[in-house]
């Protein structure tokens, strides 16, 4: 089974290397270390959101409100900075995470207590969050000149050769990976998605586990909200519009099963990187950005097909292990 999972991620890793190779053959500068760092930094927001989304999808749910959560948190941070330029970045970061977590918890509560399907809940809250941005901003933009230098500078500042934004991507990846692999809550995410009935008998509260998944996803969306607005130095109603679908796509390409309970954090990281590389490489090699959509779409279908085929291969293994069992018996 381990070889199996490894091979799924290995295939995706190989696809990424092949992609890089093809790009490098036409445009060698793309694979220069400095450019790769730039691509990773650019992919970090997608990565952070996809990590949160992974946890939600593992519990058999989906969070469509992440991009709206990001935009609302970003707007609040930007307006706060414009009103109180002296507020330290640390306080804004804390606030962004707390606000995002609050919105995520709201999703989680609706899913948990009212047992509404998550796709409906988050479709609703997505629209509500976007509406709230309009209400608090009156539809106006917060532009670069209204933001303080420390506010916009933070994600771009470099530490040990890597921009802070990229560090956040790495940090969140490591934290989520540890949480998933090494905490009872992480195990519960898999159990709830893999077999909710069994989870109930085991004493795991399915709704509560899903609540925590949404809260985590929301917190990460909030964090990204500040980073996003600060990096692009602009906040308006429609930022990151439709980004939630790209986030779900990264998870699916990474092998996270929409049926819940299956997938790895490494898969999500690779899925996000794949999309990030495609997005950054196509303009460089002079292919229309519309191709990017076609390529992303193809990648999703290929990934899902491979997952289904893997699941079938799993059926055949039963015989082999039965044989092995007979041999040892």
């Amino acid at each position, binding site marked *: *089974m381990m070889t199996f999972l490894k091979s799924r991620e290995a295939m995706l890793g190989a696809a990424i290397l092949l992609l890089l190779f093809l790009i490098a053959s036409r445009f060698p500068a793309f694979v220069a270390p400095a450019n790769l760092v730039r691509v990773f930094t650019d992919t970090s927001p997608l990565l952070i959101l996809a990590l949160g989304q992974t946890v939600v999808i593992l519990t058999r749910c989906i969070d469509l409100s992440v991009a709206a959560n990001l935009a609302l948190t970003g707007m609040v941070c930007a307006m706060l900075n414009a009103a109180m330029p002296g507020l330290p970045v640390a306080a804004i970061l804390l606030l962004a995470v707390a606000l995002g977590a609050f919105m995520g918890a709201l999703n989680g509560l609706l899913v948990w207590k009212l047992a509404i399907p998550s796709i409906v809940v988050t479709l609703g809250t997505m629209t509500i969050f976007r509406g709230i941005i309009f209400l608090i901003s009156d539809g106006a933009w917060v532009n670069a000149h209204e933001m303080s230098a420390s506010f916009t500078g933070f994600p771009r500042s470099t530490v040990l050769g890597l921009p802070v934004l990229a560090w956040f991507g790495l940090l969140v990846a490591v934290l989520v990976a540890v949480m998933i692999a090494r*905490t*009872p809550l992480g*195990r519960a995410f898999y159990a709830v998605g893999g077999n909710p*009935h069994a989870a*109930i008998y085991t*004493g795991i509260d399915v709704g509560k586990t899903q609540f925590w998944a949404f809260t985590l996803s929301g917190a990460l969306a909030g964090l990204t909200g500040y980073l996003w607005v600060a990096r692009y130095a602009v906040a308006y109603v429609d930022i990151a519009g439709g980004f939630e679908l790209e986030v779900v796509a990264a998870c699916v390409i990474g092998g996270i099963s929409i049926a819940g309970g299956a997938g790895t954090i490494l898969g999500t990281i690779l899925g996000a990187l794949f999309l990030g590389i495609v997005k950054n490489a196509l303009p460089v090699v002079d292919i229309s950005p519309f191709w990017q959509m076609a390529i992303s779409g193809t990648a999703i279908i290929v990934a899902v097909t491979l997952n289904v085929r893997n699941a079938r291969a*799993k059926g055949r293994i039963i015989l082999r292990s039965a044989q092995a069992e007979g041999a040892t018996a």
Partner: protein
Amino acid sequence: MQMSVESRQFGAPAAGDEPILALSGITKTFPGVKALSDVSLDLYPGQVTALIGENGAGKSTIVKTLTGIYQPDAGEIRVSGEPVHFATAQDAAAAGITAIHQETVLFDELTVAENIFIGHAPRSRFGLIDWARMRQQARDILTRIDADLEPDMLLRDLGIASKHLVAIARALSAEARVVVMDEPTAALSHKEIEELYDLVERLKSEGRAILFISHKFDEIFRIADRYTVFRDGTHVGSGLMSEVNEADLVRMMVGRDVDQIFPQRQKSPGDEVLQVVGYSHPTEFADIGFTLRRGEILGFYGLVGAGRSEVMQSLVGITRPSKGVVKIDGTIKVIRSPADAVSNGIVYVPEDRGKQGAVIGLPIYQNVTLPSLSQTSRNGFLRLAEEFDLARHYTQRLDLRAAALDQDVGNLSGGNQQKVVIAKWLATKPKVIILDEPTKGIDIGSKAAVHAFMAELAAEGLSVIMVSSEIPEIMGMSDRVIVMREGLIAAELEGDALTPETLVRHAAGIGEKQP
């Protein structure tokens, strides 16, 4: 209800009528299990044949064989004397054989008329569905069976009894000559059952052959003309209902000999561990009271749907009782959730392994440690080494056969999956373990292993509640048996009072008559 007092030799079919459907020498083997061995079954026009047998006797296998879902390994099926071969369910349907299942397979979001004619709807000249004709024909059939239903009603708005009527109407629309009814009255009220009997009479008068599967003796004697009894996949007897009485049928069903070997046990129950008083639920069970001692195996017997699993689910906090008290070691405990039950030392190994047991996709060791994560973690972080130790300890005790502990549970056989689930619960070090149909659907070898292990657990002082519908298992393993019927305790049996006959009598609600 009056029946013949005379009992005669079994197996003498009446001469005269030609059977519409005749199965003979049918054998069907599944990996490790011989489900049917050289059985025969004849169905006659205008007559109701009751198929009787304990759970696991092979009733549903024969139904699936004659409706074309299973193909027999050996044997012959004849329709009106002609040998036939049903490769698919469609073949059987084309031959006029229809089954009405326990859970009717109908479509909730479609109308009554669409459900009746799905698959064979009347078509117009252009090949489109002829709605007017379909409605008219549906109305005709519904009138014929006296069903007060409109063709345009949505199925989801109907009760279970009405859904049965739709299923029967569907059988009639397909010009069924043979109608199989698998426990049709299990979920019906008394009035609805009477209506169903009338309908069966009408089907009989139209010359259709009916196979009626039921555990309820009163209804078998009320509507059946003939009987066929199966036991452990073999044909035990058949004949006319007028020539047998209840005692004969019970004797044929349960047999005399318990040919399975069960572990010898020293019966020395200790102190009371669990006491349940006046346990009730608004709709599922009432006034359940029993005690369980240390080291005791308490059997719960009853027909499917008697409320045994519902009581157990309530005991472990999955559903809430409306009243009643649970005492553990003499002190009253309130169990609000499965987590409460686990921490109070009560665990439940559910019947449906696939749905409620193992988490397919997680490796073996993670399945085992799932309810014990607080044991294997420090400061909120899991310790893989300790998880492996715990999993290794309990899976070895259960003699689990697996290549490695990080293997996916989904790759294990049914018996080994069951061992993983039991290991999971033992790892929580419970006081009371509830096993719901612990050996259902697993092969004989694994069954013996589970039985031996159950005896070992009891000897170590664990108290076991075993819910089982298999009489040999109940007889062979239990110190005491509680029989449930229709949500109530029908009897508590022990010692000499515990016989296959008394079990079946109390479970089926046959009065205390002399056999």
